[in-house]
């Protein structure tokens, strides 16, 4: 599979762009789902777009310094990079060269970027938020890594394109979710943690630390975070679809699957309070890890 440089460049531009647009839809879905469960109407269709345009049109009043700026760029940039590593129907970008492990690392960049940026603004709430975010990352990364390992083990590759191909060729029976249901379940936990939704929403926690990392973010910085959120939802759900639900045969299926997957954590998010940080770690290292290990064992004895 050789594509020209020009084509690659187009793909590299399109992939994040599509991700962004789909991500906005996902944000919209999230807010609409919340609204429905809260017995109300919810925001209009273009609301996520309005928010982002508005935030970027705000005057930048202050800067907390260069590192602060770089932090945001890292956060968004990390995700943009991640998008190019996530194969979607018709576009593989650099997924073949990157693979799962790279993606895993790239996906950590945003959190680190945020940590850098927030560290600059000397707001204790921000610092607490970041320390919580990193703790949470540590918590959900353990099951996540186990899941990754299981996936790599079962498919025999860390190349996402191949993972997709294997699943699509084998039909539904070859889907990760069918092959390794425990892994898929553990993956859901990790997904919930990755998205930072209740009950794992420890690092935003408005009532405790006033939205933590976002506390000093305004205007364009907050806009960056909003963009990041779009990417985050997209990346997490598409990654899950890729690993367990056979990727996207075409765009329609991909989106259907991705939205369906996303619906689970989102619905749960509106029905639970958040855990305390240490409870979160305890929980994450208990059930998903257990599930993952069982899954691993099962894979071995298959």
């Amino acid at each position: 599979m050789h594509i020209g440089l020009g084509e690659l460049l187009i793909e590299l531009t399109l992939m994040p762009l599509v991700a962004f647009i789909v991500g906005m839809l996902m944000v919209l879905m999230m807010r609409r789902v919340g609204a429905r469960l809260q017995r109300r109407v919810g925001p209009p269709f273009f609301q996520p777009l309005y928010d982002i345009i508005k935030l970027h049109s705000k005057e930048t009043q202050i800067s907390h310094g260069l590192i602060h700026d770089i932090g945001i760029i890292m956060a968004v940039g990390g995700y943009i990079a991640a998008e190019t590593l996530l194969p979607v129907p018709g576009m593989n970008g650099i997924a073949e060269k990157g693979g799962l492990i790279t993606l895993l690392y790239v996906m950590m960049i945003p959190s680190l970027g945020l940590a850098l940026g927030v560290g600059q603004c000397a707001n204790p709430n921000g610092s607490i938020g970041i320390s919580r975010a990193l703790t949470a990352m540590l918590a959900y990364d353990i099951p996540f890594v186990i899941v990754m390992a299981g996936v790599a083990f079962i498919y025999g590759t860390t190349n996402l394109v191949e993972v997709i191909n294997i699943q699509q060729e084998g039909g539904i029976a070859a889907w990760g979710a069918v092959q390794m249901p425990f892994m898929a379940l553990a993956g859901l936990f990790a997904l919930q943690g990755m998205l930072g939704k209740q009950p794992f929403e420890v690092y935003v926690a408005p009532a405790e630390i006033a939205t933590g990392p976002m506390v000093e973010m305004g205007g364009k910085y907050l806009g960056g975070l909003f963009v990041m959120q779009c990417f985050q939802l997209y990346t997490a759900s598409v990654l899950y679809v890729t690993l367990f639900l056979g990727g996207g045969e075409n765009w329609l299926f991909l989106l259907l699957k991705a939205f369906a997957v996303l619906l689970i954590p989102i619905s749960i998010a509106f029905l639970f309070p958040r855990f305390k940080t240490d409870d979160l770690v305890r929980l994450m290292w208990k059930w998903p890890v257990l599930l993952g290990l069982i899954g691993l064992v099962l894979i071995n004895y298959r």
Partner: protein
Amino acid sequence: MSSADTKKKDIDYNSNGSVLNPLKALSFFAKKPVTEKLEPRIAAERYRGFHVNDWEKCIGCSTCQKVCDNAAITMVKVPSQKEDPLNGIRNLRPAIDYGRCCWCALCVDLCPTGSISLSREYVHTCYDEQLDSYFLLPDPNGMHNKDYGEGWNKTEENDLVDHNRQVMPERTPESRSDNFDEIVDGYDKQQAIIEASRCVQCGMCHDACPTHMHAPEYIRAIWSDDIEDAVRQIYRTNPFAHTCGRVCTHRCETACSIGKRGEPIAIRWLKRYAVDALSHDKIKDIVLGDVNPESSGFNIAVIGSGPAGLTTAFDLAKLGHKVTVYEGLDKPGGMPRYGIPYYRLPFDKLDDDINVIKAAGVKIKCNTWVGKDITLEQLKKKNHAVLLSLGLQLGRSTRIPGSDHKHVQKAVTLLQKIAAGEKIDVPKTAAIIGGGNVAMDIARSLARLQKQKFGEVNITVTAMESFEHFLADPEEVKEAQEEGVIILPSRGPQECMIEKGALVGLRTLKVLSIFDEQGRFAPHFDENDEICHECETIVEAIGQMTDVDLLGEELTEKLEWQRGRLQVDENCRTSEDWLWAAGDMVRGPDVVHAVADGHTVSKSINEYLKTLQMEKKSS
């Protein structure tokens, strides 16, 4: 009953709950949102929204302003609105500052007229530069000229205005009809305080009163049980406190804003309470505090010791002028003494008033008829200014056939005789022509005399007016009827029937209309409806006039007259610069008007004296 009874504690503290239970809420995906439409809903029926004010009902009393706890109400003069102080209507309207208002609706609850209410409109937003819109003059149309309906309004439930005045204890008709004792007892302290507490201090009474008495202030003082202050406030404008506290025509009560929907404050009775509650000496002390002890060297003569004359004398004496009052009869007081029956105004109370005036330095010469005992010319020479306050001491005649019979008498004359304690022939039956207060006075006085003498009352009052337009006070009419006087409205006297030189009756016809289209007096009778009232005596009480003989021909020629009354300017000054005239003779019968005149005259005379002094100095 409810499920709360059956399961007292349906959630156990010790249970660990469930992770799945919350998922049941996913069923809300299938349920409709409860969100309302974006457009504001219609508020509840008694919602407390922005104010509306019925300008027709509003009288500008500013009670809302007083009860407003946030000082949110400003009274604004609206020239396009009616101003009628006599009926207690001002052209002030409340303007609300919504930067203060808290929509508590106390203004509504306490509004005496019920004009102000709150609407169901509740949305008002504005930009900074439109902030003036927060200051609103509520009219009936609502804040944005859109009708949202009335919200919180005045109902019986939330009305805070006390509509009922304290009942004045008075004698029963049986116990009063055979003597001249005073009818009303006056308020006791508790009653007075309660009655005074009803006042909302609007000051309508002050505006309506001819002499602008400080009624709100003295009512307030009575309420706070500071009688001395009350008396001080009363004497600021009225030296005839006792008199006015009893027999005033109380324009104030007509204007009273509480009276718009309920019974007005009994302002007259409160005044009476205040002056009665304080000893005479105390009153003197209070009143004489501001008498100027220095003599100005000016002399003033006042002819007639009625309210107008004595008020002028009192004012001028307080300023240090030397005032002499000439009274033809043997006691001072004028019409209040000789025209008002004892049961309405006991003489000792009038004497109290006059004593206070005397104590201010006024000299009263009784039994001195100007024109007989001393001439006007002499007075003019001795004094720098002369006031004529002669009163109305001659009764008018109906001039119907037979009215010159000796048993056809004038009410004033008769009243004067009764007051002076002269013996009169009490007729067994009497007919009275006239429907004013004087007619009632004479009717009731005669009734008492009849009761004393014969044990029964036989008096008929025939008045031309119908009851709706009666001239006498309704209470007077009611009380007279209670005492056995028969009052016949709409009867026009036609003839005093004389048989063999003796008066036997009065023939009257039913009156269809009194005035013609131009408003002139031209009665129209129903010839078929004729009654003959049998009577021994007929009393004419259809009006009075002044005896102006003392002026002398020359002066009478010089002065200007209109319809038999002496013409004066707004300061009660005649065309002669040394001569003033005041009181009933220029104004018509009314005590408080006479007092008001007295003040006007005293001011005018004082001005005049000042100019004289200037001239003296310069010359």
